[in-house]
């Protein structure tokens, strides 16, 4: 609907504003008559009521944005999120949409380039007036779009597990923040496997470093020992030296947060060096390898490793079975679903719930309505939005199998409270 398309900055320009809604009412009136005369009902609340800030909402559609990298390095990871968001939107539309309006989406490509993310998010918010954006994957891309979302008051649903230390009124974080993922995993490995010594390893950027910092604090708090901590540049492909060091130090647990292409090199070389993960000493615990990454690594190379995250494709509950089936029906039977893909799937559903609770598409009303929203239909089970815009969720530990799936060996009893600013861990 580009007739309502004016320049940025008109948010506080009230005369234009009034004129706009006046025009809109004028248009909406005859439109409503037409709709009434066709079989559509009057049950849909009128657009002027549910949309007072000029978002792209009409009497029968609402437009949202999808902003991920489908080209460039990050396309490997972000493809799954795009697929999940489209599936959720399709399913919501099949159920009748949101407030009686079908969801339409505009997809933009961030092209693995952070300034492009910022530019595209501005385009979505200012030109397209989208009612919500589902997108971003890396923390760098999220940090790049954050000022844009705060300036133009948009709402971003961000799917990736990440390092925490952030809380924005304009972002709902549907993945886990670091403490949720790390602490439960370490507690489990200490209690169940009797681990005493840890070797921390990661790719060299903010997420692995922050996460290992939290892990180290927690390990030391438990009175146990970190025998080594190391970082390798992103894209590093030679891990023989560090594997030798691990052999020398003989830790009980290798705590690995290696990402991207390095992952493949790391696990292949670990296996080639004779470290058999199925023997459980040393045991490997990771928070960065989902089923998506195993596709590239190969199940036979990572068999026996443990991963701590909130979702595995093999989770045994009716929600998840339906989700996996629908996902495969839409995107092909060989596809795998990782933690982030599931978190991306939650985005549109959480937004729908917030809109319906608020009875409005207005960003401010959605923000006010969001805390406390529950989703009982989530594939991972039950989730609830916390006041800090993160999700209460359970943490699970999975054991990597030869076929590339995880077998769930542990699930936290309670939902774990998100705590993006953990005191005593920084």
């Amino acid at each position: 609907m580009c007739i309502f398309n004016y320049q940025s900055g008109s948010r506080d320009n009230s005369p234009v504003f009034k004129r706009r809604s006046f025009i809109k009412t004028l248009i909406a009136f005859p439109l409503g008559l037409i709709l009434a005369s066709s079989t559509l009902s009057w049950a849909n609340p009128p657009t002027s009521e549910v949309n007072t800030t000029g978002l792209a909402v009409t009497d029968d559609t609402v437009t949202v944005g999808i902003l991920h990298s489908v080209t460039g390095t990050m396309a490997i990871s972000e493809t799954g999120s795009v697929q999940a968001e489209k599936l959720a939107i399709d399913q919501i539309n099949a159920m009748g949409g949101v407030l009686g309006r079908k969801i339409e989406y505009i997809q933009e490509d961030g092209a693995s380039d952070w300034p492009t993310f910022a530019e595209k998010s501005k385009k979505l918010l200012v030109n397209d007036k989208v009612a919500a954006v589902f997108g971003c994957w890396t923390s760098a891309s999220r940090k790049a779009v954050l000022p844009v979302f705060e300036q133009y008051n948009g709402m971003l649903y961000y799917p990736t597990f990440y390092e925490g230390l952030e809380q924005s009124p304009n972002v709902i974080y549907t993945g886990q923040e670091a403490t949720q993922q790390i602490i439960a995993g370490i507690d489990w490995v200490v209690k169940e496997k009797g681990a005493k010594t840890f070797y921390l390893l990661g790719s060299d950027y903010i997420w692995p470093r922050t996460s290992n910092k939290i892990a180290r604090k927690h390990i030391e708090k438990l009175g146990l020992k970190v025998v080594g901590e190391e970082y390798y540049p992103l894209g590093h492909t030679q891990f023989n030296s560090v594997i030798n060091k691990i052999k020398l130090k003989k830790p009980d647990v290798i705590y690995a947060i290696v990402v991207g292409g390095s992952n493949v090199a790391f696990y292949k070389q670990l296996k080639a060096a004779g470290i058999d993960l199925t023997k459980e000493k040393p045991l490997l615990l990771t928070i960065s390898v989902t089923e998506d990454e195993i596709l590239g690594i190969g199940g036979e190379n990572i068999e026996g490793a443990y991963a701590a995250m909130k979702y595995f494709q093999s989770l045994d509950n009716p929600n998840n079975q339906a989700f996996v089936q629908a996902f495969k029906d839409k995107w092909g039977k060989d596809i795998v679903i990782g933690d982030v893909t599931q978190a991306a799937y939650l985005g549109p559903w959480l937004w729908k719930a917030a809109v319906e609770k608020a009875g409005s598409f207005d960003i401010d009303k959605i923000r006010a309505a969001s805390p406390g929203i529950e989703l009982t239909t989530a594939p991972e089970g039950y989730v609830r939005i916390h006041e800090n815009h993160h999700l209460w969720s359970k943490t699970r530990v999975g054991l990597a199998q030869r076929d590339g799936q995880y077998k769930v060996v542990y699930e936290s009893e309670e939902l774990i409270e998100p705590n993006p600013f953990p005191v005593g861990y920084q």
Partner: protein
Amino acid sequence: MFEEYSMAELTDILFMQGFAGLILFSVLVLMALGLAIIFGQMGVINMAHGEFMILGAYTTYLTSHIFETYLPALFDGYFFVAMALAFLVCFALGVLVEWGMIRFLFKRPLDTLLATWGLSLILQQSYRTVFGAREVGVTLPEWMMGSYAMTETIEVPINGIFVMVLTLFIASGVYFLMFRSLWGKQVRAVVQNRPMAGAVGIDTGKVDRYTFGIGCGIAGIAGSAFTMIGSTGPTSGQLYIVDTFLVVVFGGAQSLIGTIASAFTISQSQSTLEFFLSGSMAKVITLLIVVGILMLRPQGLFALKIRQ
């Protein structure tokens, strides 16, 4: 840092660390040979080198699938077929690229940089379209993935030995081709004096085409071998390109011996430093050493002496 370990443990680790350095050395040589041939003999900087490597990796991936489906009995040996195919496919694409693009840019060497960079982007997006954005897993025969235990603690990765043997084989092949064959003589003649080489009846265009093709073909073999140690995805080639250029430039652009010497220096300092420092610091210091030496010897470690 070593007081808590016994002498025997330390010797074992020293041995394994030395071996890790040798593996890294072989990997670097294998990566750089193809680029060194093209850069050294033609003066063309092939920015798409990494993408040719990944083409080799994808060829291996497809071959493994064909063997798994149609010839499961021969699966243990598929890797050799895959490497040969990788060479052929990359050689063919290399010849095509030279014919369609590079030969028009000979007078403008800097433009080849831009053109081959463009080519690398085109190839990346083609891989993404054909094979999907996600990484693919190449299944390897079981015998290639284990390790050979020499003693209780010394374990030698079999794929490491494989890469070392392969590198030796390819490097001596290249040596033979360049310095012991008629074709090599022609290549060297063209490098030293193109007009005169043409005047004595050497088809310089053909020499260039096959030089480029062979360089790309070797990149393909390298890519195929690296499915054992690295990832196979549309942009995986980017992981290797920086190290490759580092080796070639540091070694001296026109010298194959220089490439080998430089790979040796870089790999040994890298793996020694990695052992005593963390990975990122090791990289930083290695790069500083390289920069320092290049400031003193801008032509690289070895430079070909030719009359200007």
